[in-house]
Every structure is written in structure tokens, then in C-alpha cells.
């Protein structure tokens, strides 16, 4: 198989993700690693909580990766998204794309993270010292 999509409640293995997309046909791999920032608009973040509607999230991610294979000549695509409680510096998402030529890998990796953030049913709650907010919920 050329695609691996997982929603995990354990720390993501970034090196393992990159190994998975490696291939003797590949000339370049682009990897996006999301990390939990320590602040939002200057306000310190204590931790994050991610929640997914899992079967639908997997289905939407499959659509996005299939679209990527249709748009670019790719070799392998991996998307791992973490759920549960994350501290500052931890990794909520890893997207890794291998291709014979690097332009396709860059374009596809960026397309996947941009589209994931628009369509995949996963939600992030930011917990501050004095309260908590579901990101993007309100205008």
C-alpha cells in the first residue's frame, strides 16, 4: 500500500513516519510536523486536547490523500494525527510524502495539511490558566 492514515492516542513516532514513506524510487521526501505552541495571541497555553470523529476523519483523510495521488506523481503518503491531551512541544500531526521529484512532495504535503485543517473532523481545545476554548468555534 502507498498510503497510511492513523488516528492515535499515543505520541507520534516522527522518525518511524519518515521511514515508512522512504522508497528506492524516491528522490525527495517532504514532512510536515505540527507542534503545540506555548501561546495563542500572546496568552500562555497550558495544554491542548484533541478530539476526532474517528471514522469520518479517516474517510476525509482518505479523500485528501487520494486527491493528492491524482494531482501529483507521488510514491507514498502518510498522515498520523494524535488525539487526547498534549503538552507544549508535543506533536499533534505528522504528514510525510515521498516522490521521485521534490516539487511534487512539497506541493502535496502542503495541500494535505491545508485541506486537513479545513475539512477533517478533528477539534482542538486550548486550555489556558483561566479557562478553555474550542479553537475556531466562535466568530
Amino acid at each position, binding site marked *: 500500500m502507498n498510503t497510511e492514515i492513523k488516528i492515535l492516542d499515543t505520541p507520534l513516532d516522527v522518525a518511524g513516519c519518515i521511514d515508512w514513506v522512504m522508497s528506492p524510487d524516491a528522490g525527495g521526501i517532504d514532512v510536515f510536523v505540527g507542534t503545540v505552541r506555548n501561546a495563542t495571541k500572546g496568552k500562555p497555553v497550558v495544554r491542548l486536547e484533541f478530539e476526532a470523529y474517528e471514522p469520518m476523519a479517516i474517510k476525509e483523510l482518505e479523500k485528501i490523500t487520494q486527491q493528492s495521488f491524482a494531482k501529483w506523481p507521488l510514491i507514498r503518503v502518510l498522515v498520523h494525527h494524535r488525539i487526547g491531551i498534549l503538552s507544549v512541544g508535543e506533536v499533534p500531526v505528522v504528514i510525510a510524502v515521498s516522490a521521485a521529484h521534490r516539487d511534487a512532495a512539497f506541493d502535496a504535503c502542503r495541500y494535505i495539511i491545508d485541506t486537513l*485543517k479545513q475539512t*477533517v473532523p*478533528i477539534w482542538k481545545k486550548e486550555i489556558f490558566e483561566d479557562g478553555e476554548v474550542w479553537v475556531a*468555534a466562535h466568530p
Partner: protein
Amino acid sequence: MNINILAFGIAKDIFGSPVIELELTNNATVSNIKYLLEQRYPRLKQLSSYMIAVNNEYALPEDTIHHHDEVAVIPPVSGG
């Protein structure tokens, strides 16, 4: 018919539960569900937007709901 509505993110907080039950007529549409939900939970109207998913797919307002459909409220997503 009675349909379970799954809720995630802020919708779960607004409902106070990850799933609620809604009584619908047989030809109910996604639009009808949104109307009923907003009647019962006015805070839904304060969201930036929200979608209804039917059987793990984003649904259109005119789509009709059938008895064994899995229906979910999808508030604005924020993964990644």
C-alpha cells in the same frame, strides 16, 4: 422516528452529552434537523458555522434522513 445525533467539540459541550435523541418525521431533511437543534440549543446559533454529517459524509441542507443513518453535528474543525 427517533434519531441519535452525535456531537463533537463544542457541540458536545452545548448538548451536555456526546449523543442526544431527536424525534423526526419520516421525510426530515438536514435543514429540519438544524432547525430543531437550534430551537432546543440556541447556543448553536452563536457558532461560526456548523455542518451535519450523515453516514460519515458532509450532508447538504436538502438531504433527507433515513432510519438507520448515523447523524453527527460537526462544529468548525481545528485539527492539525
